[in-house]
């Protein structure tokens, strides 16, 4: 059944809230490397798909396979430990920790430095080299000592991507990485994400279609919880069903 070339395979995934079918029979195949975009009008169920993937919600039916293994029944923590790490629609940093500490928290667990309550925080110094490496990669090294809550929005997003990378993920789930980012930062974040695609599988929900057009290898279009089109951008953008969904959804 499973194909080793796919990082992630969704098969017939559905989620029902009461009478409302938020995700309806969604099947997806995501390759091992490259960027897979998910687009669709508001309320199409994109974020719900992410929540199902990371098990923040449990699916009503369907299966999720990661690298050939069925992970449908795993709890969120176990999913994260498999190497599926998500970023959030609203930037998800730890606001009261410094930029450096944000990275440290992401590194701590793998380094076995997470539950020592009897040692000073000084021992985290040994993670510093790796942490600064990550910060340099996203050009945040100058802000290491700044509390995350005082960073401008675009920088919060890059910090978030850096902490995500610290997890050495196999699959990154980026939920609207460009939302709220000023246009001066869009190019650099796009570039950052593109550069990750050589070594990681990335699924990205994004509204900014020009970004999607430039960096995504493969696109899935969702509307009312269902997949209505799939393929490269050029192909998908010509699909009349997609146009209708977007125009029909514009005033909803």
């Amino acid at each position, binding site marked *: 059944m499973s194909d080793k070339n796919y990082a992630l395979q969704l098969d017939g995934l559905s989620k029902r809230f009461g009478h409302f079918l938020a995700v309806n029979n969604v099947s997806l195949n995501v390759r091992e490397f490259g960027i897979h975009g998910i687009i669709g009008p508001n309320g199409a169920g994109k974020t719900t798909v992410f929540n199902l993937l*990371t098990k*923040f919600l449990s699916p009503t039916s369907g299966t999720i396979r990661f690298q050939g293994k069925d992970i449908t029944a795993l709890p*969120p*923590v176990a999913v*994260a*430990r498999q190497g599926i*790490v*998500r970023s*959030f629609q609203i930037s*998800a*940093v*730890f*606001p*009261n*920790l*410094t930029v*450096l*500490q*944000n990275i*440290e*928290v*992401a590194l*701590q*667990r793998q380094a076995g*430095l*997470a*539950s*020592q*309550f*009897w*040692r*000073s*925080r000084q*021992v*985290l110094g040994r993670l510093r080299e790796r942490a600064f490496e990550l910060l340099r990669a996203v050009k945040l090294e100058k802000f*290491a*000592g*700044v*509390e995350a809550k005082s960073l401008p929005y675009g920088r919060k997003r890059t910090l978030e991507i850096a*902490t995500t990378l610290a*997890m050495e993920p196999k699959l990154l789930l980026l939920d609207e990485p460009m939302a709220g980012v000023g246009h001066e930062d869009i190019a650099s974040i796009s570039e950052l994400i593109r550069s990750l695609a050589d070594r990681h599988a990335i699924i990205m929900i994004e509204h900014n279609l020009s970004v999607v057009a430039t960096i995504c290898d493969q696109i899935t279009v969702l509307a009312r919880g269902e997949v209505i089109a799939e393929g490269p951008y050029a192909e998908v953008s010509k699909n009349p069903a997609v146009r209708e969904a977007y125009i029909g959804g514009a005033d909803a």
Partner: protein
Amino acid sequence: MTTTFEPNTITTTPKRTTTISRRLPAVGVVALLILALVAPYYFYPFLLMKLMCMALMAASFNLLFGYGGMLSFGHAAFIGSAAYIAGYAAKEMHLSPILAIILGMAAATVVGWLFGLVAIRRRGIQFAMITLALAQLVYFIFLQAPFTHGEDGLQDIPRGTVLGFLNLGNSLTMYYFILAFTVAGFLFVYRMVNSPFGQVVIAIRDNEARATSLGYNVHGYKLAVLMIAAAIAGLGGALKALLFQIATLNDATYLASTEVVIVAVVGGIGTMVGPIAGAAAVVGLDWFFAESEFPVMVINGLVFMACVLLFRQGIVGTIAAAFEKRRAQGTEESKDA
């Protein structure tokens, strides 16, 4: 002493002010310790001992709420169970005071674990209400259990002797005994908050979903914090039982929980010395208004309201913020939150 042990003051950025900001807390701690050592000669030691017990309870609340983000309205359950068990151990089982205290803390930890089983998946206000309700259940158990002697309470708990020769019946000996435990308790909290574990706990408080997505077993960490906090509140309760030589239902009522909340908030949430300042304020108010005809309750309520409205950072937090501001003005152009 002005550190808020929010991690920001312990960052690594080389600033001109770092040496001062590093030394100031150290100087403060030494000053506070010296003050604590000589205080019984100046102030009524009994009150100071009570103050320390309350400070420990508030430190526990502060750990749970200020660092762990869990608002507990059920501290009475931890305090009460530790007081009763420690009292019972000392009085009926004739155990040494230290053993009695350890047993009391263990009891509180178990209660904390049980609370966690029901409440740990809840956040914010739900967590608060659930702990309140669970504490009522614990109260009921103590009311019904024969060994607590109902409203008469466990009377005449012996203080005993430590190491065979330190007689705790002597009020100065008792004072230094409690002081030692209080210092140990606070050191423990300090170490924990400033440990790798503490960093993860703060991260979880800041953003639970993100911590989960980084692979942390969020509920496990929260449960651990809850149990540790219960143990520390239990330490306060057990010491209090030995100090007053009684353990009563009063320690288990929801009013005892709200008192802990008041002490911690008035002192300053998320600060190390806040609980001490808060305990001093509340014990002082109790004391001052005990002999007036005006109800203490009203005064406490007004102080508390003012704190929430105007000085949300509490006594210590407000003072620290003032220092911070002055320092910021001295170094760069004013920049504050």
